[in-house]
Protein backbone atom coordinates (compact mmCIF):
# COMPACT_ATOMS: atom_id res chain seq x y z
CA UNK A 1 0.00 0.00 0.00
CA UNK A 2 1.54 3.33 -0.94
CA UNK A 3 1.78 6.24 1.50
CA UNK A 4 -0.96 8.25 -0.14
CA UNK A 5 -3.50 5.47 0.04
CA UNK A 6 -2.59 4.72 3.64
CA UNK A 7 -3.12 8.36 4.54
CA UNK A 8 -6.46 8.37 2.76
CA UNK A 9 -7.59 5.29 4.61
CA UNK A 10 -6.48 6.78 7.91
CA UNK A 11 -8.57 9.86 7.10
CA UNK A 12 -11.58 7.66 6.26
CA UNK A 13 -11.29 5.90 9.56
CA UNK A 14 -11.08 9.12 11.52
CA UNK A 15 -14.04 10.65 9.72
CA UNK A 16 -16.21 7.61 10.15
CA UNK A 17 -15.31 7.32 13.82
CA UNK A 18 -16.31 10.98 14.32
CA UNK A 19 -19.70 10.19 12.90
CA UNK A 20 -20.09 7.09 14.99
CA UNK A 21 -19.16 8.88 18.22
CA UNK A 22 -21.25 12.01 17.82
CA UNK A 23 -24.80 11.42 18.88
CA UNK A 24 -27.00 14.05 17.21
CA UNK A 25 -30.24 15.01 18.95
CA UNK A 26 -32.96 17.17 17.47
CA UNK A 27 -35.55 18.85 19.67
CA UNK A 28 -37.93 21.64 19.02
CA UNK A 29 -40.82 23.68 20.24
CA UNK A 30 -43.42 25.87 18.68
CA UNK A 31 -46.16 28.26 19.66
CA UNK A 32 -49.05 29.57 17.68
CA UNK A 33 -50.66 32.47 19.51
CA UNK A 34 -53.51 34.76 18.55
CA UNK A 35 -54.53 37.84 20.47
CA UNK A 36 -56.15 41.26 20.43
CA UNK A 37 -56.83 44.17 22.74
CA UNK A 38 -60.42 44.68 23.79
CA UNK A 39 -60.29 48.47 23.61
CA UNK A 40 -60.60 50.74 20.60
CA UNK A 41 -57.30 52.01 19.45
CA UNK A 42 -54.56 51.24 21.90
CA UNK A 43 -51.57 48.99 21.55
CA UNK A 44 -50.62 46.69 24.34
CA UNK A 45 -48.13 43.85 24.66
CA UNK A 46 -47.69 43.98 20.90
CA UNK A 47 -51.42 43.62 20.13
CA UNK A 48 -53.99 46.07 18.82
CA UNK A 49 -57.72 45.67 18.36
CA UNK A 50 -57.38 43.42 15.29
CA UNK A 51 -56.79 39.74 15.90
CA UNK A 52 -53.07 39.08 15.38
CA UNK A 53 -51.48 35.66 14.85
CA UNK A 54 -47.83 36.68 14.60
CA UNK A 55 -46.87 38.74 17.63
CA UNK A 56 -46.18 35.86 20.01
CA UNK A 57 -45.95 32.93 17.60
CA UNK A 58 -42.63 31.19 17.21
CA UNK A 59 -40.92 28.07 15.96
CA UNK A 60 -37.62 26.73 17.28
CA UNK A 61 -35.34 23.86 16.45
CA UNK A 62 -32.46 22.74 18.62
CA UNK A 63 -29.57 20.58 17.50
CA UNK A 64 -27.30 18.95 20.04
CA UNK A 65 -24.20 17.02 19.10
CA UNK A 66 -23.08 14.80 21.93
CA UNK A 67 -19.42 13.89 21.54
CA UNK A 68 -19.39 11.67 24.63
CA UNK A 69 -17.28 12.06 27.78
CA UNK A 70 -19.42 15.00 28.86
CA UNK A 71 -18.76 17.20 25.83
CA UNK A 72 -21.62 18.52 23.71
CA UNK A 73 -22.44 21.38 21.36
CA UNK A 74 -25.91 22.89 21.08
CA UNK A 75 -27.50 25.46 18.80
CA UNK A 76 -31.06 26.72 19.01
CA UNK A 77 -32.56 28.40 15.96
CA UNK A 78 -35.68 30.43 16.48
CA UNK A 79 -38.09 32.12 14.10
CA UNK A 80 -40.36 34.66 15.80
CA UNK A 81 -43.53 35.98 14.25
CA UNK A 82 -42.78 39.48 15.52
CA UNK A 83 -39.54 39.41 13.47
CA UNK A 84 -41.35 38.13 10.33
CA UNK A 85 -40.17 34.63 11.24
CA UNK A 86 -36.55 35.55 10.44
CA UNK A 87 -34.38 32.80 11.90
CA UNK A 88 -32.04 33.87 14.71
CA UNK A 89 -29.60 31.94 16.83
CA UNK A 90 -30.95 32.18 20.35
CA UNK A 91 -28.46 29.82 21.97
CA UNK A 92 -25.21 28.38 20.64
CA UNK A 93 -22.85 26.87 23.13
CA UNK A 94 -20.39 24.19 24.06
CA UNK A 95 -21.06 22.30 27.20
CA UNK A 96 -18.55 20.30 29.16
CA UNK A 97 -19.36 18.20 32.20
CA UNK A 98 -16.29 18.82 34.37
CA UNK A 99 -17.39 16.56 37.21
CA UNK A 100 -20.65 14.80 38.12
CA UNK A 101 -21.88 18.01 39.68
CA UNK A 102 -20.17 20.75 37.65
CA UNK A 103 -20.86 21.79 34.09
CA UNK A 104 -19.25 24.54 32.05
CA UNK A 105 -21.23 26.20 29.25
CA UNK A 106 -19.57 28.63 26.85
CA UNK A 107 -21.03 30.56 23.94
CA UNK A 108 -24.37 32.30 23.48
CA UNK A 109 -26.42 31.59 26.59
CA UNK A 110 -29.51 32.86 28.35
CA UNK A 111 -29.04 35.49 31.10
CA UNK A 112 -30.64 33.95 34.19
CA UNK A 113 -32.44 37.11 35.30
CA UNK A 114 -35.63 35.30 36.26
CA UNK A 115 -36.94 31.94 37.39
CA UNK A 116 -38.24 31.22 33.88
CA UNK A 117 -35.47 32.97 31.90
CA UNK A 118 -33.92 29.77 30.68
CA UNK A 119 -37.08 28.62 28.96
CA UNK A 120 -38.92 31.90 28.35
CA UNK A 121 -39.95 30.79 24.88
CA UNK A 122 -40.82 27.21 25.76
CA UNK A 123 -44.43 27.85 26.68
CA UNK A 124 -44.97 24.14 27.24
CA UNK A 125 -42.67 24.35 30.30
CA UNK A 126 -44.90 26.74 32.28
CA UNK A 127 -48.55 27.24 33.12
CA UNK A 128 -49.19 30.85 32.08
CA UNK A 129 -49.71 31.89 28.53
CA UNK A 130 -46.63 34.14 28.89
CA UNK A 131 -44.20 34.84 31.72
CA UNK A 132 -45.31 37.88 33.78
CA UNK A 133 -44.75 40.81 31.40
CA UNK A 134 -44.10 43.49 34.03
CA UNK A 135 -41.23 41.57 35.61
CA UNK A 136 -39.93 39.81 32.49
CA UNK A 137 -39.54 43.14 30.78
CA UNK A 138 -35.82 43.40 30.05
CA UNK A 139 -34.61 43.55 26.46
CA UNK A 140 -31.66 41.21 26.88
CA UNK A 141 -32.44 37.54 26.85
CA UNK A 142 -29.12 36.11 25.69
CA UNK A 143 -25.49 36.98 26.36
CA UNK A 144 -22.17 35.82 24.96
CA UNK A 145 -19.94 34.39 27.61
CA UNK A 146 -19.47 31.49 29.98
CA UNK A 147 -21.47 29.98 32.77
CA UNK A 148 -20.44 27.51 35.44
CA UNK A 149 -23.20 25.36 36.83
CA UNK A 150 -22.89 23.44 40.06
CA UNK A 151 -25.54 20.99 41.29
CA UNK A 152 -25.78 19.26 44.60
CA UNK A 153 -28.40 18.12 47.08
CA UNK A 154 -29.00 18.16 50.81
CA UNK A 155 -31.57 15.65 52.00
CA UNK A 156 -34.66 16.25 49.85
CA UNK A 157 -33.44 19.56 48.47
CA UNK A 158 -31.69 20.17 45.17
CA UNK A 159 -29.32 23.10 45.13
CA UNK A 160 -28.04 24.72 41.98
CA UNK A 161 -25.44 27.48 41.85
CA UNK A 162 -24.64 29.26 38.63
CA UNK A 163 -21.92 31.85 38.09
CA UNK A 164 -21.71 33.65 34.78
CA UNK A 165 -19.87 36.38 32.93
CA UNK A 166 -19.99 37.89 29.46
CA UNK A 167 -21.58 40.67 27.45
CA UNK A 168 -24.94 41.37 25.81
CA UNK A 169 -26.20 43.65 23.06
CA UNK A 170 -29.66 44.61 21.89
CA UNK A 171 -31.45 47.29 19.94
CA UNK A 172 -34.37 48.61 21.95
CA UNK A 173 -36.90 51.37 21.54
CA UNK A 174 -36.29 54.51 23.60
CA UNK A 175 -38.65 57.48 23.17
CA UNK A 176 -40.03 55.86 20.04
CA UNK A 177 -36.68 55.48 18.24
CA UNK A 178 -34.33 52.48 18.06
CA UNK A 179 -31.37 52.69 20.40
CA UNK A 180 -28.33 50.44 20.32
CA UNK A 181 -27.51 49.26 23.78
CA UNK A 182 -24.80 47.17 25.33
CA UNK A 183 -24.15 45.46 28.63
CA UNK A 184 -20.41 44.91 29.04
CA UNK A 185 -18.59 43.14 31.87
CA UNK A 186 -21.60 41.22 33.08
CA UNK A 187 -20.83 39.35 36.31
CA UNK A 188 -23.50 37.46 38.17
CA UNK A 189 -24.53 34.53 40.27
CA UNK A 190 -27.77 32.69 40.73
CA UNK A 191 -28.69 30.21 43.48
CA UNK A 192 -31.77 28.00 43.56
CA UNK A 193 -33.00 25.72 46.29
CA UNK A 194 -35.67 23.29 45.23
CA UNK A 195 -37.60 20.59 47.04
CA UNK A 196 -40.99 18.98 46.43
CA UNK A 197 -43.05 21.76 47.97
CA UNK A 198 -40.63 24.68 48.19
CA UNK A 199 -38.68 26.67 45.63
CA UNK A 200 -36.36 29.56 46.54
CA UNK A 201 -34.15 31.55 44.26
CA UNK A 202 -31.85 34.54 44.44
CA UNK A 203 -29.89 36.26 41.68
CA UNK A 204 -27.57 39.26 41.50
CA UNK A 205 -25.58 40.69 38.63
CA UNK A 206 -23.74 43.86 37.71
CA UNK A 207 -22.67 45.23 34.37
CA UNK A 208 -21.49 48.36 32.56
CA UNK A 209 -24.42 49.67 30.51
CA UNK A 210 -24.20 51.88 27.43
CA UNK A 211 -27.24 53.18 25.50
CA UNK A 212 -26.87 55.12 22.25
CA UNK A 213 -30.20 56.91 22.22
CA UNK A 214 -30.86 58.63 18.90
CA UNK A 215 -34.43 59.77 19.53
CA UNK A 216 -34.77 63.45 18.43
CA UNK A 217 -36.50 64.49 21.69
CA UNK A 218 -33.66 63.01 23.70
CA UNK A 219 -30.96 64.50 21.48
CA UNK A 220 -32.71 67.89 21.71
CA UNK A 221 -32.63 67.72 25.47
CA UNK A 222 -28.93 66.86 25.48
CA UNK A 223 -28.03 69.72 23.10
CA UNK A 224 -29.98 72.18 25.27
CA UNK A 225 -28.02 70.97 28.30
CA UNK A 226 -24.78 71.33 26.33
CA UNK A 227 -25.69 74.87 25.24
CA UNK A 228 -26.34 75.74 28.90
CA UNK A 229 -22.99 74.22 29.95
CA UNK A 230 -24.61 71.62 32.20
CA UNK A 231 -21.98 68.89 31.81
CA UNK A 232 -22.84 67.23 35.09
CA UNK A 233 -26.51 66.93 34.20
CA UNK A 234 -25.52 65.39 30.85
CA UNK A 235 -23.37 62.89 32.68
CA UNK A 236 -26.28 62.06 34.97
CA UNK A 237 -28.60 61.49 32.02
CA UNK A 238 -26.53 59.67 29.41
CA UNK A 239 -26.03 55.94 29.79
CA UNK A 240 -22.33 55.69 29.11
CA UNK A 241 -20.55 52.79 30.76
CA UNK A 242 -22.64 53.35 33.85
CA UNK A 243 -22.92 50.64 36.46
CA UNK A 244 -26.14 48.69 36.19
CA UNK A 245 -27.30 46.19 38.76
CA UNK A 246 -30.01 43.58 38.86
CA UNK A 247 -31.27 41.76 41.94
CA UNK A 248 -34.10 39.27 42.12
CA UNK A 249 -35.70 36.78 44.47
CA UNK A 250 -38.24 34.09 43.67
CA UNK A 251 -40.43 31.89 45.86
CA UNK A 252 -42.64 28.96 44.96
CA UNK A 253 -44.88 26.81 47.18
CA UNK A 254 -46.60 23.63 46.10
CA UNK A 255 -49.46 22.29 48.24
CA UNK A 256 -50.75 19.22 46.42
CA UNK A 257 -52.22 20.62 43.24
CA UNK A 258 -52.09 24.23 44.38
CA UNK A 259 -49.06 26.15 43.17
CA UNK A 260 -48.26 29.59 44.60
CA UNK A 261 -45.34 31.62 43.33
CA UNK A 262 -43.88 35.07 43.05
CA UNK A 263 -40.81 37.06 42.10
CA UNK A 264 -39.52 40.53 42.93
CA UNK A 265 -36.80 42.22 40.89
CA UNK A 266 -34.93 45.51 41.25
CA UNK A 267 -33.00 47.03 38.38
CA UNK A 268 -31.05 50.26 38.34
CA UNK A 269 -28.44 52.04 36.24
CA UNK A 270 -26.55 54.63 38.31
CA UNK A 271 -26.05 58.15 36.87
CA UNK A 272 -28.50 57.66 34.01
CA UNK A 273 -31.99 58.74 32.92
CA UNK A 274 -33.23 55.19 33.54
CA UNK A 275 -35.69 54.92 36.43
CA UNK A 276 -34.99 52.48 39.26
CA UNK A 277 -37.31 49.60 38.52
CA UNK A 278 -39.11 47.52 41.11
CA UNK A 279 -41.28 44.84 39.55
CA UNK A 280 -43.12 42.00 41.20
CA UNK A 281 -45.79 39.39 40.69
CA UNK A 282 -47.72 36.79 42.65
CA UNK A 283 -49.57 33.93 41.05
CA UNK A 284 -51.73 30.96 42.01
CA UNK A 285 -52.66 27.98 39.88
CA UNK A 286 -54.52 24.76 40.58
CA UNK A 287 -54.07 21.61 38.54
CA UNK A 288 -57.22 19.55 37.90
CA UNK A 289 -55.60 16.74 35.94
CA UNK A 290 -55.30 18.16 32.41
CA UNK A 291 -56.77 21.56 33.22
CA UNK A 292 -54.82 24.20 35.16
CA UNK A 293 -56.51 27.56 35.77
CA UNK A 294 -54.38 30.42 37.07
CA UNK A 295 -54.53 33.99 38.36
CA UNK A 296 -51.62 36.41 38.19
CA UNK A 297 -51.17 39.90 39.63
CA UNK A 298 -48.19 42.06 38.69
CA UNK A 299 -47.04 45.43 39.91
CA UNK A 300 -44.70 48.00 38.39
CA UNK A 301 -43.44 50.43 41.02
CA UNK A 302 -40.54 52.31 39.39
CA UNK A 303 -38.90 55.41 40.77
CA UNK A 304 -37.62 58.20 38.56
CA UNK A 305 -33.92 58.98 38.80
CA UNK A 306 -34.02 62.81 39.14
CA UNK A 307 -30.30 63.33 39.84
CA UNK A 308 -29.77 64.90 36.41
CA UNK A 309 -32.41 67.60 36.98
CA UNK A 310 -31.32 68.13 40.57
CA UNK A 311 -27.77 68.90 39.44
CA UNK A 312 -28.96 71.99 37.51
CA UNK A 313 -28.66 75.13 39.71
CA UNK A 314 -31.89 76.77 40.87
CA UNK A 315 -31.48 79.98 38.91
CA UNK A 316 -34.12 81.72 36.79
CA UNK A 317 -32.40 81.40 33.37
CA UNK A 318 -32.14 77.62 33.80
CA UNK A 319 -35.60 77.07 35.30
CA UNK A 320 -37.17 76.03 31.99
CA UNK A 321 -34.39 73.57 31.19
CA UNK A 322 -34.49 72.14 34.69
CA UNK A 323 -38.26 71.66 34.58
CA UNK A 324 -38.03 70.13 31.09
CA UNK A 325 -35.43 67.60 32.19
CA UNK A 326 -37.28 66.84 35.42
CA UNK A 327 -40.43 66.20 33.38
CA UNK A 328 -38.60 63.84 31.03
CA UNK A 329 -37.04 61.92 33.92
CA UNK A 330 -40.30 61.76 35.85
CA UNK A 331 -42.00 60.37 32.72
CA UNK A 332 -39.67 57.37 32.88
CA UNK A 333 -41.59 56.42 36.00
CA UNK A 334 -45.05 57.77 35.25
CA UNK A 335 -45.53 56.05 31.90
CA UNK A 336 -44.57 52.69 33.41
CA UNK A 337 -46.21 52.40 36.83
CA UNK A 338 -49.34 50.33 37.15
CA UNK A 339 -50.72 46.84 37.65
CA UNK A 340 -51.59 43.86 35.51
CA UNK A 341 -54.37 41.43 36.44
CA UNK A 342 -54.55 38.15 34.55
CA UNK A 343 -56.78 35.08 34.57
CA UNK A 344 -56.32 32.12 32.29
CA UNK A 345 -55.90 28.40 31.98
CA UNK A 346 -53.69 25.73 30.48
CA UNK A 347 -55.31 22.62 29.03
CA UNK A 348 -53.08 19.62 28.23
CA UNK A 349 -55.04 18.21 25.31
CA UNK A 350 -52.14 16.11 24.00
CA UNK A 351 -49.02 14.58 25.63
CA UNK A 352 -46.85 17.07 23.72
CA UNK A 353 -49.14 20.05 23.39
CA UNK A 354 -51.22 22.37 25.50
CA UNK A 355 -53.85 24.97 24.76
CA UNK A 356 -53.88 28.22 26.76
CA UNK A 357 -56.18 31.17 27.13
CA UNK A 358 -55.33 34.38 28.95
CA UNK A 359 -57.17 37.59 29.70
CA UNK A 360 -54.95 40.37 31.04
CA UNK A 361 -56.07 43.78 32.22
CA UNK A 362 -53.54 46.60 32.42
CA UNK A 363 -54.34 49.49 34.77
CA UNK A 364 -51.70 52.19 34.42
CA UNK A 365 -51.28 54.77 37.18
CA UNK A 366 -51.56 57.33 34.35
CA UNK A 367 -55.18 56.24 33.79
CA UNK A 368 -54.57 53.83 30.91
CA UNK A 369 -56.92 50.86 31.19
CA UNK A 370 -56.83 48.10 28.65
CA UNK A 371 -57.49 44.39 28.22
CA UNK A 372 -55.72 41.84 26.04
CA UNK A 373 -57.22 38.45 25.19
CA UNK A 374 -54.81 35.78 23.93
CA UNK A 375 -55.05 32.13 22.87
CA UNK A 376 -52.06 29.89 22.28
CA UNK A 377 -51.05 26.35 21.47
CA UNK A 378 -47.63 25.30 22.82
CA UNK A 379 -45.84 22.23 21.55
CA UNK A 380 -42.57 20.43 22.21
CA UNK A 381 -41.13 17.80 19.94
Amino acid at each position, binding site marked *: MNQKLKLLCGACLITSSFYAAADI*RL*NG*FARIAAGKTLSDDQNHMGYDNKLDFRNESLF*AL*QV*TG*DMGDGLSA*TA*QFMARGEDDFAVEVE*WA*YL*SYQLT*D*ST*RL*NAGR*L*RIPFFRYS*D*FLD*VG*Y*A*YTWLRPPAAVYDLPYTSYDGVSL*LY*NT*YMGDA*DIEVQAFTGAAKDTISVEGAPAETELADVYGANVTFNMDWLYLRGVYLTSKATFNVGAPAFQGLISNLEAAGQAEAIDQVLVNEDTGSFAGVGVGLLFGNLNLQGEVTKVGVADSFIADRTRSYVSASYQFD*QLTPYVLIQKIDDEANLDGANSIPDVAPLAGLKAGLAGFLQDQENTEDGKYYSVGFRY*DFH*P*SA*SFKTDLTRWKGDDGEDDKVLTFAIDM*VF
Partner: protein
Amino acid sequence: MSKFIKAIFVLASFFSFSVLAEISIIVHPSNAASVSSDDVSRIFLGKKKSFSDGNTVVPINLKEGSDTRETFNSTVLNKNSSQLKAYWSKLVFTGKGAPPKEVASAAEMLKLIANNPNMIGYLDSSAVDASVKVVAKY
Protein backbone atom coordinates in the same frame (compact mmCIF):
# COMPACT_ATOMS: atom_id res chain seq x y z
CA MET B 1 -75.31 -15.02 29.98
CA SER B 2 -72.91 -16.70 32.39
CA LYS B 3 -70.31 -16.78 29.61
CA PHE B 4 -70.77 -13.06 29.21
CA ILE B 5 -70.32 -12.45 32.93
CA LYS B 6 -67.26 -14.67 32.91
CA ALA B 7 -65.84 -12.71 30.00
CA ILE B 8 -66.38 -9.45 31.89
CA PHE B 9 -64.78 -10.99 34.97
CA VAL B 10 -61.74 -12.11 33.00
CA LEU B 11 -61.51 -8.72 31.35
CA ALA B 12 -61.84 -6.96 34.70
CA SER B 13 -59.19 -9.09 36.35
CA PHE B 14 -56.88 -8.53 33.40
CA PHE B 15 -57.46 -4.81 33.68
CA SER B 16 -56.83 -4.72 37.39
CA PHE B 17 -53.74 -6.85 36.87
CA SER B 18 -52.28 -4.37 34.43
CA VAL B 19 -53.05 -1.48 36.77
CA LEU B 20 -51.43 -3.24 39.70
CA ALA B 21 -48.41 -4.35 37.68
CA GLU B 22 -45.29 -4.51 39.79
CA ILE B 23 -42.19 -2.65 38.63
CA SER B 24 -38.70 -4.06 39.17
CA ILE B 25 -35.65 -1.82 39.07
CA ILE B 26 -32.85 -3.75 37.40
CA VAL B 27 -29.06 -3.48 37.12
CA HIS B 28 -26.18 -5.64 35.91
CA PRO B 29 -25.70 -8.78 38.09
CA SER B 30 -22.18 -7.63 39.06
CA ASN B 31 -23.39 -4.25 40.29
CA ALA B 32 -23.10 -4.21 44.08
CA ALA B 33 -24.04 -0.55 44.62
CA SER B 34 -26.91 0.16 46.96
CA VAL B 35 -29.82 1.91 45.26
CA SER B 36 -32.48 3.60 47.40
CA SER B 37 -35.83 4.64 45.97
CA ASP B 38 -34.70 8.29 46.22
CA ASP B 39 -31.67 7.32 44.14
CA VAL B 40 -33.84 5.73 41.44
CA SER B 41 -35.93 8.86 41.13
CA ARG B 42 -32.86 11.14 41.09
CA ILE B 43 -31.11 8.99 38.50
CA PHE B 44 -34.12 8.96 36.15
CA LEU B 45 -34.62 12.72 36.59
CA GLY B 46 -30.99 13.33 35.62
CA LYS B 47 -30.01 14.70 39.05
CA LYS B 48 -27.72 11.86 40.07
CA LYS B 49 -25.03 10.76 37.67
CA SER B 50 -23.26 7.98 39.58
CA PHE B 51 -24.01 4.88 41.68
CA SER B 52 -23.24 4.83 45.41
CA ASP B 53 -19.88 3.17 44.58
CA GLY B 54 -18.89 6.10 42.36
CA ASN B 55 -19.40 4.41 38.98
CA THR B 56 -21.21 6.36 36.28
CA VAL B 57 -24.89 5.53 35.98
CA VAL B 58 -26.79 5.46 32.69
CA PRO B 59 -30.58 5.22 33.09
CA ILE B 60 -32.57 3.49 30.36
CA ASN B 61 -36.23 4.23 29.73
CA LEU B 62 -38.86 2.16 27.99
CA LYS B 63 -40.36 3.91 24.98
CA GLU B 64 -43.01 6.56 25.42
CA GLY B 65 -46.54 5.20 25.59
CA SER B 66 -45.51 1.90 27.20
CA ASP B 67 -47.80 0.93 30.12
CA THR B 68 -44.83 -0.08 32.24
CA ARG B 69 -43.26 3.34 31.70
CA GLU B 70 -46.50 5.08 32.71
CA THR B 71 -46.63 3.02 35.91
CA PHE B 72 -42.95 3.73 36.58
CA ASN B 73 -43.52 7.47 36.05
CA SER B 74 -46.47 7.64 38.40
CA THR B 75 -45.28 5.30 41.17
CA VAL B 76 -41.53 5.91 41.21
CA LEU B 77 -41.14 9.45 39.83
CA ASN B 78 -44.49 10.71 41.11
CA LYS B 79 -45.18 12.61 37.92
CA ASN B 80 -47.57 12.15 35.01
CA SER B 81 -46.28 12.13 31.46
CA SER B 82 -47.06 15.78 30.70
CA GLN B 83 -45.38 16.93 33.92
CA LEU B 84 -42.33 14.90 32.95
CA LYS B 85 -42.36 16.32 29.47
CA ALA B 86 -42.46 19.85 30.91
CA TYR B 87 -39.67 18.91 33.34
CA TRP B 88 -37.41 17.65 30.57
CA SER B 89 -38.19 20.48 28.22
CA LYS B 90 -36.87 22.84 30.92
CA LEU B 91 -33.56 20.96 30.94
CA VAL B 92 -33.24 20.05 27.28
CA PHE B 93 -33.73 23.60 26.00
CA THR B 94 -31.35 25.11 28.54
CA GLY B 95 -28.32 22.86 28.23
CA LYS B 96 -28.84 21.41 31.69
CA GLY B 97 -29.57 17.83 30.78
CA ALA B 98 -31.10 15.29 28.46
CA PRO B 99 -33.74 12.62 29.18
CA PRO B 100 -32.67 8.97 29.52
CA LYS B 101 -32.13 6.98 26.35
CA GLU B 102 -35.08 4.81 25.32
CA VAL B 103 -35.44 1.22 24.23
CA ALA B 104 -38.36 -0.18 22.26
CA SER B 105 -39.03 -3.39 24.18
CA ALA B 106 -38.55 -5.37 27.40
CA ALA B 107 -36.23 -7.77 25.53
CA GLU B 108 -34.01 -4.90 24.47
CA MET B 109 -33.97 -3.55 28.03
CA LEU B 110 -32.89 -6.95 29.42
CA LYS B 111 -30.15 -7.28 26.83
CA LEU B 112 -28.71 -3.81 27.53
CA ILE B 113 -28.78 -4.08 31.31
CA ALA B 114 -27.36 -7.64 31.26
CA ASN B 115 -24.38 -6.41 29.25
CA ASN B 116 -23.52 -3.06 30.84
CA PRO B 117 -22.64 -2.63 34.53
CA ASN B 118 -23.25 1.15 34.30
CA MET B 119 -26.87 0.89 33.25
CA ILE B 120 -30.04 0.88 35.30
CA GLY B 121 -33.50 0.18 33.97
CA TYR B 122 -36.91 -1.07 34.95
CA LEU B 123 -39.38 -3.66 33.75
CA ASP B 124 -42.67 -5.19 34.69
CA SER B 125 -41.60 -7.83 37.26
CA SER B 126 -43.09 -10.59 35.08
CA ALA B 127 -40.59 -9.74 32.29
CA VAL B 128 -37.47 -9.96 34.47
CA ASP B 129 -35.14 -12.97 34.16
CA ALA B 130 -31.90 -14.12 35.80
CA SER B 131 -29.66 -12.16 33.42
CA VAL B 132 -30.16 -9.03 35.53
CA LYS B 133 -30.27 -8.14 39.22
CA VAL B 134 -33.37 -6.63 40.83
CA VAL B 135 -32.49 -3.86 43.31
CA ALA B 136 -35.98 -2.63 44.17
CA LYS B 137 -39.65 -3.40 43.55
CA TYR B 138 -42.60 -1.02 43.48
